[in-house]
């Protein structure tokens, strides 16, 4: 399989086409916008946090397939986690996307590991990480962030 086909593997294309937890929910407690204006990626995250736990994680916005799939997978993985556990996953995801790191998967990241090939496309890493930084910003009470 070519690097390109590994980047746009079936799971990524499927999440892009039918993203999970997509759409602005009726209620939420925390919200932040992740915007990479230069490449035109917008991911809005809506969180419901109760007792230091991510009860619901939704997202909206328009972006490239990598950012869409990453957000779709991230929301699935994050729903139900405590904030502490989410931070651990965030740190692991940053390591997964680190071009100098040779480890190719982390058990805690589940399907998110399918994004591993993104790190071979340096200009696309920022697309994959955008939704994670947006959740991090929302948790911290910030209204917007960027990974450009």
């Amino acid at each position, binding site marked *: 399989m*070519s*690097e*390109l086909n590994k*980047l*746009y593997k079936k799971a990524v*294309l499927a999440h*892009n086409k039918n993203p999970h937890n997509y759409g602005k929910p009726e209620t939420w407690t925390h919200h932040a916008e992740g915007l990479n*204006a*230069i*490449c*035109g*990626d*917008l991911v809005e995250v809506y969180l419901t946090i109760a007792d230091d736990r991510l009860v619901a994680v939704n997202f909206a916005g*328009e*972006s*490239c*397939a*990598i950012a869409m799939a990453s957000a779709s997978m991230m929301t699935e993985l994050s729903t139900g986690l405590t904030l502490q556990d989410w931070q651990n996953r965030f740190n692991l995801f940053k390591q997964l996307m680190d071009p100098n790191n040779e480890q190719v998967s982390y058990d805690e990241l589940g399907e998110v590991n399918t994004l591993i090939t993104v790190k071979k*496309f340096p*200009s*696309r890493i920022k*697309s994959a990480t955008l939704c994670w930084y947006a959740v991090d910003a929302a948790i911290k009470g910030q209204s917007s962030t960027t990974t450009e």
Partner: protein
Amino acid sequence: MMRHEFPGLQQQVHGKPLVYLDNAATAQRPQAVLDAINNYYLKHNANIHRGVHSLSESATELYEQARNSLARLINAPSEKDLIFVRGCTEGVNLVAQTFVRSRVKAGDEILISHLEHHSNIVPWQILCEQTGAKLKVIPMNQQGELVLDDLDQLLNERTKFMSVVHVSNALGTINPVKKLIAAAHAKDIPVLIDGAQATPHIKVDVQDLDCDFYTVSGHKMYGPTGSGILYGKSEHLSAMPPYHGGGEMISKVTFESTVYNAVPAKFEAGTPNIAGGIGLGAAAEFMMTVGMDKIAERDQVLKVYAEQALSEVPGLRLVGTATNKSPVFSFVIDGIHAHDIGTIIDHHGVAIRTGHHCTMPIFQFYGLAGSCRASLAFYNTEQEVDVLVESLLKAKAMFQ
């Protein structure tokens, strides 16, 4: 045309022949430009305008010859009307701060157009912030052409300056700048034309246009990065205060006062980008040898071919369809984000740009976050356009 002269075109990307269609971002450089830069560093490496030794003299001569080549390219009355700058961005900022700033007060207006590159918007916003002046905008239509119906009101007694792009980098629209300049001059309003995307494609004659200032970007016209020209009418340049202070721009310095050098030295403080200027001169000579008429003609043939070829890609929508345009194609494809298209076709060797192309207001007008942009130069071929189209079809197939 002349492909063999451009070594950068003779390479492979991801195992495929490079199809370079990102010329509006920066063009490839011909061997003549690379040789001119090399020749300076190898044989004439010295500072200019300050030594009596042979190398300094020959370096100065090469640099001043380059200025002369550029003056001929744009038909300036004299090479003394040309200031070497880093690019169009610096040219616009220089004019805003040294020519326009002293002419505007709170409530005055600066007129630009909806098609401007950020580099012809932000310097004016800074000026407006400094002076309390207002920025006014000539509107555009769906085709990506300027709407001139209200020009008469937009050019009013409060208008102190107009700055308009000659050719849009995002849409390729060639603006009727001669007409705009005449309309502004009828009301004594001076005009700057941003020529970044014009000089690589069409014959520019600053005397015929009668513009007050004209900016040229070296790296867009097959010259080195960090090089460029600001042309200004001599009466303006001699009346303007300097932009940067330092060496070279003075004729006498004491601690009490300084006497400035004559134009253009007055605006060229410090050691300039000597190799860049010489390389840019070589680019101008190269283009004049090929012939601007031939370049413009070839561009139009490519434009017609590419327009037709792209229109046959199902689901592709061209953004900007002006009647008079250069071979620049902004487009979007249903169901695939520009960023994904850019990555996928790069793997087929095709280099395009994706995003807002430093013209966010244009994409706000269209309600888009950005586009794919294929921008062609005279050295591109019909076969390369075919490769672009095939690679777009492959991208579509992948996203089925």
